[in-house]
């Protein structure tokens, strides 16, 4: 058996060169998805390109305008960042839900996105926070909104030689907060059967002036649900508005039956979680 090469480039340019030169070279960040797929025979890379030694891929910077998350920053490091957790509690809680403590020590937010699982916990939270993906490639750098990054289960907009470098999120507007909830049968360790992220902005009277809702694990990719947001905007997030948002989320869902849940179950729960996440987000605005 030919040994698979291990490469640890020190710069984005070197990583892009390696990935461009070799079809089978795969980006290796936390390894929590790629190594599992490799061991199960689902992926046969010719080289693992470990991006964790590239300085700009690791780390968190928050300016007065935006958050920049290096794509290879581990979930554990993100969870320990106090300012991030204060500004984006929903994103922090989504990151905190990725796997076990051990997995958090390895798994990265970029990997969670690039693995393109419709059930990825961070995706919904990134979508409602208007995150953008910074991509480096042979043709230079480009940026895409996170909701268009994943195109199908296991597929992204990344082209050969391209690499997700960072995720940027604009600082939340005043009186804005987010929340993320998922449903799993156990209390930990499961893949989401359904998930919902909500971000709301309330004016001084408690009227919702802006909202974003995203649902996960209920369609081929995480979905932004504008109809659910519309149901919230202009309301005081009363029961009627929340129920309308829940109904919109359920209506937008197009789930499948699988070992983790049924179509009917996922559809229902997507609505329940949307409603609950909206309440939690609103409750965080003080």
């Amino acid at each position, binding site marked *: 058996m030919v040994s698979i*090469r291990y490469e640890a480039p020190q710069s984005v340019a070197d990583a892009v060169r390696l990935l461009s030169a070799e079809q089978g070279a795969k980006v290796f960040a936390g390894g929590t998805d790629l190594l*599992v797929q490799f061991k*199960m025979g689902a992926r046969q890379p010719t080289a693992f390109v470990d991006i964790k030694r590239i300085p700009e891929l690791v780390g968190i910077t928050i300016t007065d305008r935006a958050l920049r998350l290096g794509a290879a920053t581990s979930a554990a490091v993100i969870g320990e960042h106090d300012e991030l957790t204060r500004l984006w509690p929903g994103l922090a809680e989504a990151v905190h839900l990725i796997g076990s403590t*051990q997995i958090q020590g390895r798994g990265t937010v970029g990997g969670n996105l690039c693995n393109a699982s419709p059930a990825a916990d961070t995706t919904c939270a990134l979508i409602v926070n208007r995150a953008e993906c910074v991509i480096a490639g042979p043709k230079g750098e480009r940026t895409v909104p996170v909701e268009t990054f994943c195109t199908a289960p296991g597929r992204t907009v990344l082209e050969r030689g391209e690499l997700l470098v960072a995720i940027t999120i604009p600082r939340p507007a005043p009186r804005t907060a987010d929340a993320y909830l998922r449903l799993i049968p156990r209390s930990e360790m499961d893949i989401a059967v359904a998930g919902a992220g909500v971000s709301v902005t309330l004016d001084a009277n408690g009227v919702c002036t802006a909202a974003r809702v995203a649902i996960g694990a209920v369609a081929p990719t995480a979905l932004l649900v504008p109809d659910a947001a519309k149901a919230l905007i202009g309301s005081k997030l009363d029961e009627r508005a929340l129920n309308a948002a829940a109904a919109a989320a359920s209506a937008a869902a197009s789930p499948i039956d699988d070992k983790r849940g049924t179509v009917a179950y996922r559809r229902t729960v997507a609505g329940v979680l949307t409603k609950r996440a909206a309440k939690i987000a609103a409750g965080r605005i003080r």
Partner: protein
Amino acid sequence: MKLHIHTTINGEPAEFLCDGHETLLSALRNTLGLTGTKEGCSTGDCGACSILLDGRLVPACLVLAPEAQGRTITTIEGIAQHDVLHPLQKTFLENAALQCGICTPGFIIAAKALLDKKPKPTEDETRFWLAGNLCRCTGYDKIIRAVMEASV
């Protein structure tokens, strides 16, 4: 061609040869003879292979061996200080927090990571921190008690 890796394991410099796709778990167990780190699933779902990599709790089955280059690794074999057991090792013994014992090294490493970060965790914090460590024998009761007792 094998890669030659220089690293630090349990406070001692160590070096080993590995393939590019070999896991750190395999290098520890098979090449370095450190079999205290156990393999329960190889997919990061059981916690039996928990180690500390630069002080961070990780599953050794999902770390590539060459990643250890220049890093610091702590395994169960490095927890006791000479002839003095770590407080967690003592409380596990005193609380009968093990039956078959296969999950024990992983639990002790994971619990050490918790207590290093948060010396007095609540029961809930302890249970959620250790949710990635499966035990099929004890129902967790005595394990949680042992960890909380070690935190006092």
